[in-house]
């Protein structure tokens, strides 16, 4: 129980009069693939935005990777990465430049090598030199997830990562998720 990498207790959040989260509790173990299910508008994204420090909860206790979200949000940001509902990529830059940029922002020592390793791992060496605006939806998603893996964060938050993808690309995303989990990364 103490090993849980994500601990959520009694988390509440309302927008004006609408209570979106009415006391959410759960725990996630390291290396686990944890899926949060719910209909549209049920607060899944809100919960993810709170855990990724983009939004503050009204009440409750959140501990991620041993850090309390109120006191240590910066350390939490160092342990996680977020892939949102829509691919958050810089379309003017090439795939490689996007990866390098994230590596630099994570303050890694060898951004070029990190970028190249991910390009090879995701089989994108042909596309890496092209601007992302020329990519297909599936390729954008791939580079988007690759960007989330820069610096090997312990926890990866994926908010509906298969939105807008064809069945083949969906399977590919789920395969990446399984591989990650097998390697000890916690996937939310």
């Amino acid at each position, binding site marked *: 129980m103490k090993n849980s990498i994500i601990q959520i207790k009694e988390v509440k959040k309302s927008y004006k009069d609408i209570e979106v989260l009415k006391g959410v509790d759960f725990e996630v173990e390291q290396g686990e693939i944890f899926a949060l299910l719910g209909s549209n508008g049920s607060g899944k994204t809100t919960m993810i*935005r709170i855990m990724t*420090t983009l939004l503050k909860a009204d009440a409750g206790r959140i501990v991620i990777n041993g850090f309390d979200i109120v006191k240590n949000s910066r350390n939490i940001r*160092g342990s996680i990465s977020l892939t*949102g509902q829509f*691919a*958050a*990529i*810089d379309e003017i830059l090439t795939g490689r430049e996007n990866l390098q940029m994230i590596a*630099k*922002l994570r303050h890694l020592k060898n951004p070029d090598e990190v970028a190249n390793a991910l390009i090879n791992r995701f089989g994108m060496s042909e596309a890496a030199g092209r601007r992302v605006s020329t990519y297909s939806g599936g390729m954008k998603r791939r580079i988007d997830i690759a960007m989330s893996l820069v610096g090997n964060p312990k926890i990866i938050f994926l908010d509906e990562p298969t939105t807008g993808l064809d069945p083949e690309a969906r399977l590919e995303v789920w395969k990446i998720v399984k591989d990650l989990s097998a390697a000890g990364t916690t996937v939310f």
Partner: protein
Amino acid sequence: METTNKYFFKDMSVMFGRSMRHVFRSMDTIITVSITPIAMMLLFVYVFGGAIETGTENYVNYLLPGIMLMAIGSGIAYVAYRLFTDKQRGIFERFHSMPIARSTVLWGHVLTSIISNGISVVVIILVALLMGFRSSAGILAWLSVFGILGVFTLALTWIAVIAGLAAKTPDGAGAFSYPIIFLPFISSAFVPTNTMPSAVRIFAENQPVTPIVEAIRNLLSNQPVGNDIWIALAWCIAIIIVAYIFAMRIYKRI
């Protein structure tokens, strides 16, 4: 939120580098912010200029300050557009969920605005030199000119931040710049105000562009600047303060 941050400058340089790449990779941006003002300058000097009585021998000298302000006015529209795109695509969210100095996400855009507008102003000055622009101004006067232009750019940039963050569509993000681009027409930028009907003239003489244009024009022609420079700076600083407060309020909400 974060008081001290050892990564501020490092993160800032990444953000700045990224945003400058956007400027240089967009033909549209380069054409609009440099080539359009240059075309305006050619048009006014070689088509209308002969018929305009400014009381100065060299119309390029008279025109240049207004052209520079128009270039900056169109340049900041792209700042708003770039901010809008970042917000729309979720790039802000990605950056904000990373262990970086969060303020650099915004300041990278602001710095890019200052530098890229600076570059387009320099290009315009070089073209003006080819067209016969001459200045007897010394180093100090030139520095003052760039200082005023810098403060003016900063003021408009913060307005652009508001527009970019608050806009719902990409067109909306850029639309605010049209009135700004047109302000120089109703000022002393192209023609002296004394031939305008009194209502227009009152507006022209009391809007921010006129004192800025007059201050720059006098600095470049080695004339005393009088109060214009202080009125110009007061306008710009007031706009910076008000726009910054609103921009930060919107930024905290996203």
